[in-house]
C-alpha cells in the first residue's frame, strides 16, 4: 500500500514540477505597449519566439493605484487586444497598467507589463474628417474631431482637450507630390486662399494640443478641384464698368466729330461778291459812260524825261513799273485804299507832297503811279491847249495814262475848274504852289477818266508821238489831251486815278469840297492800281470791270510806259479795240 502511495506521489510531484518547468519555459512576450487613439485603445504585444499554434495570450489590466489585476482575456490568438471598453475613464484618471503573458495549454509565461503607465499622454490625436468647400476663390475647410462610438456622451474631444487645440494643414496641388505648403490654424474652421489658381488641391490635417506632448496623426487626403470662375460678381461689375466707359468715350468722340464737321459759316469778312468786290464801284458818284481812251499829248511827256529816265521804272508795284526804291512803294497805299473820305486822302496827300516834289525833282522815284514824274516848268491857266496845262488839267481829272505831272502853281489854278468835274485832282493845285516851292514837282499820278464822245472825236486830232522818256518807257502811246480846261464831269473816272498829295494838303487846308472828286479819284486810283495789278493776267476780269473804266484806262495810261510792262501790248490792243 505504502509503496503504491509513494509511487503515485512521486509521479504527481514530477508532473507538477514538469508542468511548472514547462510554464516557466514558455517565454513571455518581449514587449507590451499601448497604441491608443481617441477612445480607441489597443494593446499590442510581440509574440513569443517559437510560438506554436496552441499558444495564446492572456491579458490583464490594472487601474493605476487601485485594486488587483483584472484578467481581460484568457486566451487571445491575436497579438493585440482592444481595451477601450475597460479604459473609458482613461481621460479622467491617472492611467492604467496592462500585462500580457503567453499561454500554451497549461503552460504560462511570465507576465510582461507595459513599460509606462498608460495615460492620456499616450493617446495619439487624430481628426475625424475634413470637409472642403469652394467659395469666392477660397477653399473653406471644416475639421471634424473624432467621434468614436464607444466614447461616453460627456467625453468629447473638445471637452477633454478644451484648450490649445491646433491643426497643421498641408496643401498640395495635384500634379506636385512633394510641394506642400503648411499652415497652422487654431480653430476647426479654416480658409485657404488659392490666388486664382486652377486645378485640384489636396489637403491633409494633423491635430495637436500645444499644452500637451501628445503626438498627432495626419488625416486622410481630401481633394477639391478649382475651376476658373468667369462670372463672379467682381468680374461682372468690372465688365459693365468697362462697357460704360467705352460707350462714353465713343459718344464723346462722335459728338466731337459732329461738332467739328458741322456746316460752318464763313466769316462775314471773307464773304465777297465778285461784282461788289471793288468798293470804288459803290463810290462812283456819277453814272458811268463808256470808257474812252484819250490819247495824251506825247510832246508833253518829253519834259518828263530827265526824271523819268533816272527813275527806276522797273518793278513798280502799282502799275507794273519796276521800282526798287522804297519811295515808290510808300505811295502804294494811296492807290490801294478806296478811301471814300476825302479827308483820308488829303491826309495821305499831306504826307506826300514834299516827297513827291522832291521825287519829281529827283527823277520821280517816288511816283506811285507809273514812276513817271513829269515836271512842268511853267504852266499857265490860259495856255489851255498846251500840254502842260492839259496835263495839269488832265492830271487833275483827265484820263491820263498814268503820267504824273508836276505842275506849277499857275497851271493848277486854271485846272481847278475843270478838274473837279472829271474828278481831277487839280483843284488844290493853285494852293499847292502857295504852300510849297513853286518849282516843286507835284506828282499827280495817272488819271484815267471817261470822257464824252467829243473827247473821242478829238482823238483823231491827237498827236501820236513817241515819248522819248527815259529809255524804258513805251515808245508809243496815244493820248489826247483834253483842250478844254473845264471838262464836263464825266460820269466816272474809269481808269486809275492817282491822288495828288498836294491836292490832299489843299483839301486839308479847306478847299471847297465840291471841287474835289476825291472819292472818285480815290476810286479811280483804286481801280488803277487794281487794274495795273490785273493787267498781266486778268483781263477777262478787267472786261467785267468795263463799266468801271478799268479796262480802257490801262490802255491809255500805260501807253507811255515802259515796254517792259506786261500790260503794255494789251493796253495798246485794248486801245485799238476801243477806238474802233
Amino acid at each position, binding site marked *: 500500500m505504502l509503496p503504491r502511495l509513494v509511487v503515485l506521489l512521486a509521479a504527481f510531484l514530477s508532473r507538477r514540477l514538469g508542468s511548472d518547468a514547462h510554464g516557466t519555459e514558455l517565454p513571455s512576450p518581449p514587449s507590451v505597449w499601448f497604441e491608443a487613439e481617441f477612445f480607441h485603445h489597443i494593446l499590442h504585444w510581440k509574440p513569443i519566439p517559437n510560438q506554436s499554434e496552441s499558444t495564446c495570450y492572456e491579458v490583464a489590466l490594472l487601474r493605476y493605484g487601485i485594486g488587483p489585476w483584472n484578467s481581460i482575456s484568457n486566451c487571445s490568438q491575436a497579438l493585440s487586444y482592444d481595451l477601450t471598453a475597460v479604459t473609458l475613464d482613461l481621460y479622467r484618471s491617472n492611467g492604467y*497598467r496592462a500585462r500580457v503573458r503567453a499561454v500554451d495549454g497549461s503552460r504560462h509565461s511570465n507576465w510582461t507589463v507595459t513599460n509606462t503607465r498608460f495615460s492620456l499622454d499616450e493617446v495619439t490625436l487624430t481628426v475625424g474628417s475634413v470637409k472642403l468647400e469652394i467659395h469666392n476663390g477660397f477653399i473653406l475647410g471644416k475639421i471634424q474631431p473624432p467621434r468614436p462610438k464607444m466614447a461616453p456622451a460627456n467625453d468629447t474631444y473638445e471637452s477633454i482637450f478644451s*484648450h490649445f487645440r491646433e491643426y497643421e494643414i498641408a496643401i498640395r496641388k495635384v500634379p506636385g507630390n512633394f510641394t506642400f505648403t503648411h499652415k497652422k490654424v487654431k480653430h476647426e474652421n479654416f480658409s485657404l486662399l488659392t490666388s486664382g489658381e486652377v486645378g485640384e488641391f489636396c489637403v491633409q490635417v494633423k491635430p495637436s494640443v500645444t499644452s500637451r506632448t501628445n503626438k498627432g496623426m495626419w488625416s486622410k487626403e481630401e481633394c477639391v478641384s478649382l475651376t476658373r470662375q468667369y462670372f463672379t460678381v467682381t468680374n461682372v461689375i468690372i465688365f459693365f464698368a468697362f462697357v460704360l466707359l467705352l460707350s462714353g468715350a465713343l459718344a464723346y468722340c462722335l459728338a466731337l466729330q459732329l461738332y467739328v464737321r458741322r456746316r460752318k459759316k464763313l466769316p462775314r469778312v471773307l464773304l465777297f461778291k465778285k461784282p461788289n468786290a471793288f468798293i470804288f464801284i459803290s463810290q462812283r458818284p456819277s453814272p458811268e459812260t463808256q470808257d474812252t481812251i484819250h490819247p495824251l499829248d506825247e510832246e508833253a511827256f518829253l519834259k518828263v524825261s530827265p526824271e523819268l529816265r533816272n527813275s527806276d521804272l522797273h518793278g513798280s508795284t502799282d502799275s507794273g513799273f519796276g521800282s526798287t526804291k522804297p519811295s515808290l512803294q510808300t505811295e502804294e497805299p494811296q492807290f490801294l485804299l478806296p478811301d471814300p473820305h476825302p479827308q483820308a486822302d488829303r491826309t495821305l496827300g499831306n504826307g506826300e507832297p514834299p516827297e513827291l516834289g522832291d521825287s519829281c525833282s529827283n527823277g520821280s522815284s517816288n511816283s506811285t503811279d507809273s514812276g513817271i514824274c513829269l515836271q512842268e516848268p511853267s504852266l499857265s491857266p490860259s495856255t489851255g491847249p498846251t500840254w502842260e496845262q492839259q496835263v495839269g488839267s488832265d492830271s487833275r481829272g483827265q484820263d491820263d495814262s498814268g503820267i504824273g505831272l508836276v505842275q506849277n502853281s499857275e497851271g493848277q489854278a486854271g485846272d481847278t475848274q475843270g478838274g473837279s468835274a472829271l474828278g481831277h485832282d487839280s483843284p488844290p493845285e493853285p494852293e499847292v504852289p502857295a504852300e510849297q516851292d513853286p518849282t516843286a514837282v507835284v506828282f499827280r499820278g495817272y488819271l484815267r477818266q471817261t470822257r464824252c464822245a467829243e473827247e473821242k472825236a478829238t482823238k483823231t486830232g491827237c498827236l501820236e508821238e513817241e515819248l522819248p522818256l527815259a529809255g524804258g518807257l513805251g515808245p508809243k502811246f496815244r493820248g489826247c489831251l483834253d483842250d478844254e480846261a473845264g471838262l464836263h464831269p464825266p460820269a466816272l473816272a474809269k481808269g486809275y486815278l492817282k491822288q495828288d498829295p498836294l491836292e490832299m494838303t489843299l483839301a486839308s487846308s479847306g478847299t471847297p469840297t465840291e471841287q474835289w472828286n476825291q472819292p472818285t479819284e480815290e476810286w479811280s486810283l483804286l481801280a488803277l492800281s487794281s487794274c495795273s495789278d490785273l493787267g498781266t493776267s486778268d483781263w477777262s476780269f478787267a472786261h467785267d470791270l468795263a463799266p468801271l473804266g478799268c479796262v480802257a484806262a490801262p490802255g491809255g495810261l500805260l501807253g507811255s510806259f515802259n515796254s517792259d510792262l506786261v500790260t503794255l501790248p494789251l493796253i495798246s490792243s485794248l486801245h485799238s479795240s476801243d477806238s474802233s
Partner: protein
Amino acid sequence: MKLQCVSLWLLGTILMLCSVDNHGLRRCLISTDMDHIEDSFQEIKRAIQAKDTFPNVTILSTLETLQIIKPLDVCCVTKNLLAFYVDRVFKDHQEPNPKILRKISSIANSFLYMQKTLRQCQEQRQCHCRQEATNVTRVIHDNYDQLEVRSAAVKSLGELDIFLAWIAKNHEVTSSA
C-alpha cells in the same frame, strides 16, 4: 445720489478684490514654462516608469486626492508638493543613467524656480494654507513612507506627469509652444 455713488464704489472695490484674490496664485505661475518640464519628463517617462514594480500603489493619486482640491487651496498644495519633490523625491532617487539624470536635474531646477515664484506670492499673503490643503499634503507623505525609499522615489518620479497635469489645470498656464 451721493449714497448711491458711495455704495457703487464700494461694490466695485469688493469685486475687484475678490477677483484679485481668486487669481492670486495663477498670476504667480503663468510665466512658468511647463512645456519644457513636460518634454523632459516624456523623454525619461518610459525609463522611470518601467522601474516601478508596484502599479497598484500610488502616492499622488490616492482616492483622487488632487482632484478634490479647491481653488483656494491650490496655492498651498502646489507649494507643499513642490517642497515634497525637491526635498524628498529628487534627493532620494539615485539615477545611474546620465541622460536620465540630466533630465531629472532640469525638472528639479524648474521646480526650484517655481518655488521661488510662489514665495513671492506668499510674502504678499496670497497663499494661505487651510486644513484641507494640510491634510492632502499629509496623505501624500504617508503614501511615500509606506514604500521603500528607492521604490517610493522612483514611483514619485513616475507620477510627475500627474503633478504637472494638475498644475496646468489649476494654474491656467499658457502654452509657449
